[in-house]
């Protein structure tokens, strides 16, 4: 690859998903992240009860992310060939886990607000 600039990267992602879907996904990720920050700021505290459920969702998010990537790319766990592959796999799993946790926490805070918190 000649040079990997930020604009090249954006162009590549636009081509992978299509311009509309890519920016819709970016928007969705931003909305969830902003909503998460919003509930943190609004509540001025983290609810450990909600966080517990969020943590419980993390393994499911991790596994779902790995399965999603493997199904989308015709690959299997047996294709792991070197250290960098393990790092990529863990990265995908970690993103899935964190994404699921944020989503679950935010959803609870926004839609199932309880006084006990």
């Amino acid at each position, binding site marked *: 690859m000649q040079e990997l600039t930020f604009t090249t990267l954006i*162009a590549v992602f636009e081509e992978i998903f299509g311009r509309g879907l890519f920016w819709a996904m970016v928007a969705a990720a931003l909305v969830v992240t902003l909503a998460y920050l919003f509930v943190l700021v609004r509540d001025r*505290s983290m609810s450990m009860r909600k966080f517990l459920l969020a943590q419980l969702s993390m393994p499911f998010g991790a596994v779902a992310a790995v399965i999603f990537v493997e199904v989308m790319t015709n690959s299997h766990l047996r294709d792991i060939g070197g250290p960098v592959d393990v790092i990529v796999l863990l990265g995908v799993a970690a993103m899935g886990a964190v994404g699921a946790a944020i989503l679950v926490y935010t959803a609870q805070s926004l839609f199932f607000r309880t006084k006990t918190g």
Partner: protein
Amino acid sequence: MTLTGLPTSRRGFLGLGAAGLAAAALARPGRAQPIATTARIVIIGAGAAGTALANHLVQRLTGAQITIVDARAEHLYQPGLSLVAAGLKPAAYTLSRTTDWLPQGITLVSEHAAAIDPITKTVATTSGQNLSYDYLVVAPGLVLDHDAIEGFSLDLVGQNGIGALYAGPDHAARTWAAAAQFTETGGIGLFTRPATEMKCAGAPLKHTFLIEDIASRSAAAGKYEIHYAAPQQALFSVPIVHEKLRMLFGQRGIAAHYGRTLAAIDPGAKRATFVETVTDPVTRIETKSRVEMPYDYIHVIPPQRAPEVIRQSGLSWADKWTDQGWVEVDMKTLRHLRYPEIFALGDVAGVPKGKTAASVKWMVPVVEDHLIAAIEGREGTAVFDGYTSCPMITRVGRAMLIEFDYHNNLVPSFPGIIAPLEELWISWLMKEVALKATYNAMLRGRA
């Protein structure tokens, strides 16, 4: 856990977000001023190279008359053909329309170039239209000489165990139909490559590896043998890559036969005839003999040559590749050695390496630089050093990201992170997910 000191009202929160967006907008890099010119630029070929260059030029020039000559309505994403021929993608994966990628403000002449006169600086099209140029870029690709293989014709592809994936999306899909049957019933798989220069010299190997991998997990497991016959004395022109591939062939039980050029096939008897060239190690005298090899599945790749219009125009090398006719250009600037207003890009360029889309990505900015420098009356500085990239698929799910240059050096894009000679999942992911996207971004002049 308590957070303090942050704006906690909705208004404050939105303000914070707006400030972030404004900062992101300001961070966008500026663009150089376009150069005003009335130059007439003719590009022959709207494939990967011609299209990418046209998109680059419209961003850099204003007032130029850019004409692109190509009769093909369909644009082919050729790196996808290997995936189609292994049943991993449908034929449509490689197809789009030529006009989808071309910029506004240029003229598309939907005809083939019939003649090029470098003295009077004109290109004649098949309908007799004459296009005068100040600068000419030849990027018509190459032609597959299927007739050179006796007994073979394209309508045989897909039946009786005959495959030929280079011939296009439909033939790649039919190649998979024939190969798929082999992966179910087994027998002898015979994979070839031509003696000429060829586009993506890795593709013959990818097809071999993919079909072997799929067969090993299908009904044919344990009931097949794989033979790879090549005219060359190596599996790959870069020695260190050859050695790695030789070891992989050993591990996978693929038999390599060097010095064998496919000359004829007998589809009825399922036998292929090769011309075997053996060089005496002492006297260096070559002896040629004919060797027959049986097959149940054969992958045919015909000799490849420059299009007739190029070979008739006097633009080809006179002393090199005389049977193939590649354009005589400086290997570093891609500028014609006798006609400085002519450049060649992509498959047709007579340079030692670089008949891949990845090379095109590096060639286009070099031609752009020298062409624009010529318009401005100065010398260009960009240099093409033979960069070629080959995501060498070794299994469904694994590949080696091999990148090299004219000097047979490996030039990895991600040194220390993605090892070039290791079969990795990440390299497969790049081929599977990012490559077509990068290619499309390149076509649009954005990568």
